[in-house]
């Protein structure tokens, strides 16, 4: 160990590395390239990972949608092909009977899955947009960013069936003047005047919503379109640690029993499980990370083997030098340590340069893709990966250095000296 911290040792190693410049550079390039690929790949995979996570950040990761369809089996005296209709009270039943569920938001919509879009008029300007009847709890499941000065629907809006609406940023652009404050303004929604209480910011990804959506209180929607207690679909969020797939099955089982549907009828209720989708996509991202790790480490390995190869050749070239050193009193251990240290040192220098270069390129890519619409955000390499890579390099550098080192000492000094 003392040998490692002896400045004389390092002078000897710097001497031998520094004086064989071509060899040193070629050696370094191999490992540098390997670690660079590793860092670039791992960072990109991480960027992809971050990107997906950002795409989904507006929606609870463990949320799902459930809607009603037609039965496909006769059951309980009802014939097949019966249209089903979700009711407001189903929400209460589900919430009470599935403990995994944290929030459930009954929703009505028009102009999304069917029905006509609502006609919105303001003065001379008109537009048609999808309209939703919502409860305040909806924002717990799908975050709605509301621009300053505005708000989302609240409990009092529901109680009093207020004629208030939250409009999208596109609607604002199309119906209001540029510097006009839309909050407090009035728009006519299918011939009823509504006061605008907020403008929501559109966050892309994870759903069917758009930047032109209009949200009104559920109770107002009910009166406006005469829907009674009908619900088009439920947005449901399970607790963070809950099994979303099981919750989804539970919800559908309860709905089947409530609506007199054969438990085996798979087509009576439809559902879309974001949690499951998210899991799949994250699985893909994880797969990418794993791939990049494998490829990166394989590349490093190739680089280190390259170092070993070059050192082996250089040991052959230096047979005489090593013979002289041993004639002058270098012990086999000293010769061996020198070769191994050269190997490790070269690997480390190359590795650190590769890391710096890789980090630079990642930064550049991150900067260039900042405004491009693709799931790629903040590509970074976690520190443990970097430390792991360095560790791998030291270990591999030592192991690979062992081969030329052993070769160097296996030649008798007398034979080494005789070599011309």
């Amino acid at each position, binding site marked *: 160990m003392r040998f490692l911290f002896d400045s004389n040792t390092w002078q*000897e190693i710097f001497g031998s590395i520094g004086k064989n410049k071509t060899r040193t550079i070629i050696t370094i390039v191999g490992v540098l390239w390997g670690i660079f690929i590793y860092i670039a790949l791992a960072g990109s995979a991480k960027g992809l990972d971050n990107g997906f996570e950002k795409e989904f950040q507006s929606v609870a990761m463990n949320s799902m949608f459930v809607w009603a369809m037609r039965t496909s089996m006769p059951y309980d005296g009802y014939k097949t092909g019966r249209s089903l209709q979700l009711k407001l009270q189903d929400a209460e039943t589900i919430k009470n009977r599935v403990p995994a569920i944290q929030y459930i938001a009954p929703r009505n919509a028009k102009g999304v899955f069917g029905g006509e879009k609502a006609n919105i008029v303001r003065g001379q300007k008109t537009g048609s947009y999808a309209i939703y009847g919502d409860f305040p709890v909806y924002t717990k499941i799908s975050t709605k960013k509301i621009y300053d000065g505005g708000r989302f629907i609240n409990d009092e809006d529901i109680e009093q069936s207020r004629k208030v609406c939250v409009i999208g940023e596109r609607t604002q652009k199309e119906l209001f003047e540029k510097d006009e404050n839309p909050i407090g303004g009035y728009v006519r929604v299918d011939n009823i005047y509504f006061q605008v209480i907020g403008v929501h910011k559109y966050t892309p990804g994870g759903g069917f919503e758009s930047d032109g959506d209009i949200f009104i209180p559920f109770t107002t929607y009910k009166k406006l379109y005469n829907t009674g207690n009908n619900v088009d679909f439920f947005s449901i969020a399970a607790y963070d640690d809950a099994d979303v797939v099981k919750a989804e099955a539970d919800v559908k089982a309860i709905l089947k029993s409530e609506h007199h549907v054969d438990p085996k009828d798979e087509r009576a209720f439809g559902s879309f499980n974001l949690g499951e989708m998210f899991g799949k996509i994250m699985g893909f991202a994880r797969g990418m990370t794993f791939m990049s790790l494998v490829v990166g480490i394989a590349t490093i390995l190739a680089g280190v083997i390259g170092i070993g190869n070059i050192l082996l050749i250089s040991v052959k070239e230096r047979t005489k030098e090593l013979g002289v*050193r041993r004639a002058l*009193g*270098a012990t086999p251990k000293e010769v061996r340590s020198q070769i191994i240290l050269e190997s490790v040192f070269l690997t480390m220098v190359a590795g650190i340069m590769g890391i710096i270069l890789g980090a630079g390129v990642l930064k550049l890519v991150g900067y260039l893709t900042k405004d491009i619409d693709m799931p790629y955000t903040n590509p970074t390499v976690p520190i443990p990966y970097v430390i792991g890579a360095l560790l791998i390099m030291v270990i591999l550098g030592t192991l690979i250095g062992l081969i030329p080192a052993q070769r160097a000492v296996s030649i008798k000094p*007398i034979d080494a000296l005789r070599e011309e």
Partner: protein
Amino acid sequence: MIEIKNLHKSYKMGSNTLHVLKGINFSIDEGELVAIMGSSGSGKSTLLNILGMLDEADSGDYTLDGVPIKNLDETKAAKYRNKFLGFVFQSFNLINYKSAMENVALPLYYQKVGRKERQEKALKYLEQVGLKEWAGHLPSELSGGQKQRVAIARAMAAEPKVLLADEPTGALDSKTSYEVMDLIQKINDAGNTILVVTHEPDIANMCKRIVHLKDGVIVEDKKIKQVRASAYV
């Protein structure tokens, strides 16, 4: 200083065994300058290699400065070489990417001498061989005679008990050869024990004693009147 008794050495060449040294007996006292002569194949280089612990004898005793040399592993041999012996080779064997001074300092590095002291000593020995102003030059920038003088300085730097020179003038023209021999004689005058392997009679005559080897045995061992190399320079 050196005691050799009944030294045997043979090499296996395929199915044949080549008996190179067939029982060598001789001793060298401190301060001697001995030439080992013989034609090629007489075993003189093998003898030198055994003396230099670069090779091991099959049988026989070898005592160096009172220390019996046997059953050496590489590590022990390296330590003894570093402590007892200085080598001068026919082809100089300087390390080509190190300057003259660094080359001279190398055995001191293996003696774990500090950097500063190493450099001072190296410069001192370079000065003794008259190459102080060439300290920073690489071997490729030196002439053959200069290289051999650097090699001699390197051999002396470790302050060895015995200096072993294997054909030190073999790669040099006669004028440079005499300069190198002059240097070797001066080192000997200072009290150092030196062994020179050569096949050139004029070089051998510049030593104080000639040991003649033929077919693995000593055929002649005589003290001679030394011819001073400085007469030719």
